[in-house]
Structure formats: structure tokens, C-alpha cells
């Protein structure tokens, strides 16, 4: 693609040298890129300083608050590729709608309908997308760490839209936005923003990238994070994920301490032969009305989706007034708009 198509973004400098044609303009990076990884990338929530988190939240707040016409051309003519090796409803659609509402062009490549089926490697798929003019790749992949590979070989900003059992950083940001607004906190965060707040994340922690990203972010803001689940789905080493995280097998006890209850789905696709007694799981870990009102009647209920109603959560809770589940989805759109703008602005939000 020609460098001329890059001129839409008002904040971006013009006349990109030919060699860097495939890359986004780079005003200035907030953090220097590690071994050739573009600073606009978001591979792990751990790469963001709290200041950057605040900047992303602020940008999301602004984009969500203003009329859509104000930012409809922010990324006009910019090209984004959605590269999805796993199925997705929320993440894919919200990235796509976020991109389109900023005026960007998107293309979706999925493993089922592309040369990936013919055995093309992730590296070659990325290089192909870059050669076609993609300036940013949003990647969902079933292998942990694959965004690192893609970012390294393409030099493009890569947004991790969920990689295996590793991380889902945009989900952690949208969850944070949801928690902050539900608890009436400012969208600018510091180390003490969530002091006194306990968040319990319950369910299949072992296979959950959402749990990892949240557990790696929330304690940095002062929150206490309790990981809750049976031994099989919550191995003891999870406690070392971040200082201050605690493990609790007893869901009732976890709930009693929590202001936020984040529920997770059992990831059948990643069980790798593990046998789960679902009836027992339901009995011990399902969030239902009785349990909720008995132990945490005021807690904000969250779920990253997809939910399996009747297993980890019941309909009355999921659809009830304390549920922030739809708000999470809406916030996903705002956060992803901010992340796309950041990615194509060289890492500055």
C-alpha cells in the first residue's frame, strides 16, 4: 500500500519513509519496544504502566462519550486485519465495530477459510497481511504467546485478542472500566484506586486467559484478588501469579469477602482429557440467587462470556440488576476503539 493512505490521522506525522510504509506513523513511544516489537502492540497487560492504563481508559471514556461523528474519521483509510484462529463473538465483533466506527478498513482472516488451512505458518500469514497493507493485526490464537511471534516477525502493532491460556489484555481493560464505573471510581487509576476492594474470579482459572490478565492487573491498583475454584482447575502455583493473590476453594467464603464476583466458563476445548464432575462443580461453584443473596448481596457480577447458563451462573443472576455483563460488552467497544487508536498512533493513547 502507498504511504499516502496514512495521512488521515490528524495527530500522525506525514511522509513516512518508504521502508516503514507498512508500519504506523510513530510520533513517540511510551515505552521502547522490546526486541523489535512495535510499541503500539498490546501483547500482555503487564507491559502497560498504570499511567498508560489511565491514558487508555481516558481515551475510551472520551470516545464512548462523544458523538460518533466526532471520531468517525480518526482512522480513516487505515487498514486493520483481524486474524482469528479461534471462534469469537464478542471480541471479534467489538474490535471490528470499533475499527469501523473510527473509519478504518478491516479484513477478517480466519483459520477456517484461509490458506492457514493449507498449512501456511503464522509468520507467513502475518507477512502476507502486512504486504497487503495491514497496519495493525488483531490476533486471536489458540497457542499461548503467538502474538509475540507475530509482532516480532511483522514489526506491526499487534493486539492480543486472546492467546491460548495466556492472556486477554483488552478484556482486562474493559473489565477494569466496568469495575471502576460500577464502583463509582474515576477512570484515572493509581496504585490505591481499588484499595479495600476484593474481586473474586471463580471457575476454570487454569485455562483462563481472562483470569490471568485480570489477576495481573487488578492487584496493581490495590485490589485484593481471590482466585476460586477446584484443585483441578486452580493449581496451587496460581498463587504466585502476582503478589497478594490468594486462593480459595470455598466459593461461599470467597463471595463473603468480595465486592466483585467474576465468573468463568469451564473451557471444554482446553481440558485435554481432564474429567470434571459437572454436577459437583455446579453445586460448589455456581453463582445462583440463594448463594448470591446469602453471601454477597451487593457484589457486582461479571462474566467475560460466553456464559453457559445453568452451569457456572443462573439466568436470574446473569440477567439481574447486579449483573454488569452487558456493560462489559459495551465497554469492550470503547476500550477497543482506544486500543486501535493507540496502536496506530505509535503506542500513545
Amino acid at each position, binding site marked *: 500500500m502507498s504511504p499516502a493512505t496514512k495521512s488521515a490521522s490528524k495527530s500522525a506525522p506525514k511522509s513516512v519513509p518508504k521502508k516503514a510504509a507498512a508500519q504506523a506513523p510513530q510520533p513517540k513511544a511510551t515505552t521502547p519496544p*522490546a*526486541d523489535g516489537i512495535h510499541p503500539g502492540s498490546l501483547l500482555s497487560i503487564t507491559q502497560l504502566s498504570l499511567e498508560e492504563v489511565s491514558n487508555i481508559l481516558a481515551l475510551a471514556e472520551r470516545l464512548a462519550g462523544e458523538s460518533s461523528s466526532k471520531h468517525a474519521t480518526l482512522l480513516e483509510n487505515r487498514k486493520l486485519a483481524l486474524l482469528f484462529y479461534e471462534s469469537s463473538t464478542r471480541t471479534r465483533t467489538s474490535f471490528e465495530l470499533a475499527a469501523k466506527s473510527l473509519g478504518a478498513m478491516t479484513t477478517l482472516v480466519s483459520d477456517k477459510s484461509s490458506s492457514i488451512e493449507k498449512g501456511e*505458518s*503464522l*509468520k507467513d500469514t502475518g507477512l502476507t497481511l502486512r504486504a497487503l497493507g495491514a497496519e495493525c493485526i488483531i490476533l486471536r*490464537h489458540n*497457542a*499461548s*504467546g*503467538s502474538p*509475540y*511471534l507475530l509482532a516480532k*516477525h511483522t514489526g506491526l502493532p499487534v493486539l492480543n485478542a486472546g*492467546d*491460548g*491460556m*495466556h*492472556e486477554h489484555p483488552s478484556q482486562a481493560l474493559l473489565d477494569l472500566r466496568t469495575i471502576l464505573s460500577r464502583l463509582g471510581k474515576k477512570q484515572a487509576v493509581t496504585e490505591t484506586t481499588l484499595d479495600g476492594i476484593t474481586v473474586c474470579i471463580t471457575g476454570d482459572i*487454569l485455562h483462563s*486467559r481472562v483470569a*490471568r490478565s485480570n489477576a*495481573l492487573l487488578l492487584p496493581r491498583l490495590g485490589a485484593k484478588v481471590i482466585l476460586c475454584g477446584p484443585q483441578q482447575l486452580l*493449581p496451587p*502455583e*496460581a498463587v*504466585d*501469579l502476582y503478589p497478594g493473590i490468594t486462593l480459595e476453594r470455598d466459593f461461599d467464603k470467597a463471595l463473603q469477602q468480595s465486592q466483585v464476583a467474576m465468573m468463568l466458563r469451564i473451557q471444554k476445548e482446553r481440558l*485435554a*482429557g481432564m474429567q470434571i464432575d459437572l454436577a459437583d462443580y455446579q453445586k460448589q461453584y455456581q453463582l445462583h440467587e440463594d448463594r448470591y443473596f446469602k453471601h454477597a448481596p451487593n457484589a457486582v457480577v461479571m462474566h467475560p462470556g460466553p456464559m453457559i447458563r445453568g452451569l457456572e451462573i443462573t439466568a436470574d443472576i446473569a440477567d439481574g440488576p447486579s449483573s454488569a455483563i452487558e456493560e462489559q460488552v459495551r465497554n469492550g467497544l470503547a476500550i477497543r476503539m482506544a486500543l486501535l487508536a493507540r496502536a496506530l498512533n505509535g503506542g500513545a493513547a
Partner: protein
Amino acid sequence: MKSILIKGGHLIDPPSRTDRLRDLLIHDNKIVELGDPGKLNATAKKEGAEIIDATGLIVAPGLVDIHVHLREPGQGYKETIESGTKAGAMGGFTALCCMPNTSPVVDSPEITRWVLSPERNAVIRVFPVAAATRGSMGEAITEYGSLKAAGAVGVSDDGKPVLQDAVMHQALIAAARAGLPMIQHAENTKITVGASMNAGARAFRLGLRGMSVEAESGIVERDIRLVRELTTSGKGPRPHLHVQHVSTAKAMEAIRHAKRAGLHVTCEVAPHHFMLTDEAVEGYNTHAKMNPPLRSEADRAAMVTALLDGTADCIATDHAPHAVHEKEQEFEKAPNGITGLETALSLSIKMLHHQHRMPLLRLIHLMSTAPAHIMGLRGRGTLAPEAFADVVLFDPKSTWTFNARNSPSKSRNTPFDGQTLPGVVKMTISEGRVVYKA
């Protein structure tokens, strides 16, 4: 017939505990004589010997690596016997024991002889390890006697363990009868399905399935139990179990106990397991992916301790070449292993000699004399008169920068690329022929 006089060097020969200035005279493919500096000049002159000045250098028996993958037959795009032996020569090695997990698997006398054929153009000596079971499938043991007759020096299903108790029991007996070591890759593959790194907090955070310490130590303990039963029964010859690439303190402890109990159990440690920990995996670096995986700092330190106190018998690289496109994949998809022949001596000098003050005599024992002994390679690992003229000349004091692209190996999958390391190999002589010169 040709003679070589290596003079002025500091000669290290572990079997005779020689560790001082000595000249060395080689005739044809054998060592003839060691002498005080200048003592052999007259003889050398009479024979018209080529003179090699080794002033400032260590002169030692050529290094022996009892665990390498030369990838032939079948995977010549990763390495060939020619390219792998050239990489070995560059690293100061004069003998390599190559593993049978090729395509086809080296499980017959025919394939063993194919590996040994002069057409393979090996520049240093190659000693095949043959498969312990047919196709390395872990079910039916191969014919150890005829494999030995064809040139095999040991049996192993490296890359896969022999899991079934009954098969391992049978393999230990048959290997002992044939006078071969039974060489085990200790991994309980039933509990490492889908695992790609060391189990623990880091694997959890990276979202990678982990291989537990017990997956290694459990098999080592089981094997030792079988060796003990066979040894104490007094029936038949004593079995020799050699444990490959030990990576965990727990497995090493089991081996320590077995040795104290007088069992014939030996083991090796790979340089990466005493140099690196699973921290190297961060960023999903596939050049830090191997099996057994890089472990914790406590495990790494235990490997150093074992090499220092003699529990670990030798150093072996597990040189495992893979093509660039194979390592440039998603971490879980990328194959296990790194190359190691070029850097083993330097890494050992750096960690063991410099950092832990291990005398070079002991280091050469671990990299030459002991491994040759474990695999029964007669006339190797020593500079005694009549031994093969396998010699390495290196400068332990100066440094070099390793550039994997310049290695004669066909692959460059190594986490040590670009590092400046101590210990420069100046010359490698294999059976009287100079096969590498810096």
C-alpha cells in the same frame, strides 16, 4: 605414515592426572609418547614430524559427546553426519554418540552400518546408539547383540522413554548381556501430554502446560529400582543404566543414592541445564524450548553441584539441530532442542571453571575421559601412549564471540548465539588428522 609433535602446551590428561607442560608426539593415528618440554625434539626431527606450537594452550584428549542428534538418515535438512561432525570438530570434539531417533529409526544392524559408512563423510568419529525397542515404540526390544556387532555402543529410545516396567526390565537384562549401557530419556510421557516447559508459576503465567519434576524423577526412580532388583538378584551380568540429560534436583538425588548403594548408574548433564533456567522462556523464546525443559534456579544449581561432587558423571550436549522455520513457530508447536556442540566447552569453562573454580583437569574428565568410559570407547578420552590421537588444543583464557551462522552445523537454533564466551578451540585432531583449525 605421518608424525606430529605438539610442543610447548600445557597438557591435561585426566587418567594419568597429568596437568603440566608436556610435549606430545603422534604417529599416524595413535599417540606415541609424552615428554617434558623439548625432550621429544630429537625423535620428532628424526621422524620428520610436523611441529605444532601449542605455547599458551591447553592440550587435552579430544572431547567426547555421548548425546547428539546428527539427524541422518532422513532429516538432512536439519543436520547431516558430515555437518554435525564438522560442528563437533569446531567445538573440540573428536567422538560423538548419535541418537537413533532418525527416519527411519536406527533399530537394525543395516541402518547402524549405514550411519557408520565412510560415505557419510564424518570428519570425527561417530558411535551410533541404537534404538532400545523396535521403531522406538517402547514395545519389543531390538537385538542388542547384533546391533553391537554392527557398531552400536549403547541402546536408547531417546526422545521417548521406555515406559513399561516389563520392557525396561527386559532391556536392562539384554543390554547387560550384550555389554551395552541402557540409556534412558527419563520422562513419564503419560503426565507430560501437551507440556512445553517446566511446570510451575512461570508456566502458569505464560499459559503453557508444564512438565513436572516428578515426570522426570519418577522414571529415574523406577529405573533405579529395576537396576537394584537385577543387581541384587545376582543372576546374570550387572546392568548399567545411563540417565540422559538430568535436569531436576530430585532425579539427581535419586542417582546420588543409587551410586552410594553401589549400583551401576551413570548420568549426564547438558550445558543448558547448568547455564539457564526457565526464565529464558520469557517472550516465548523457542530457543529456550527443549526436553527436558529448562528448570528452576534450584534445579540449575543442583546440576552444578552434581558436576562438582561427581554425582553427574559427564557433560553431554543433546545437540538437537532444527531448521529455522521449525523454530519460528508458536512456542507449543516448535520442536524441542538446541544445538550445543560449538559452545559446550566454552559454557563449561565459563560456569564450572571460572564461576565454580573447577580445575580444568576435572572439566576434561567430565567432557572426555568419563563419557568415553561410560560408552566403552577404548583408546579415547586419554592421551596415554597407544591411545587414538584425538586431541584438542584450546586457549582457556581468551574469549570468542559465537556466531551461529558461521557454524558448520546446518542449524542455528541456540540461545547462546552472539554471546562472547571464554575458551577458544584452536585445533582439533582426530586420529592424527587436523580436522579443525581456528
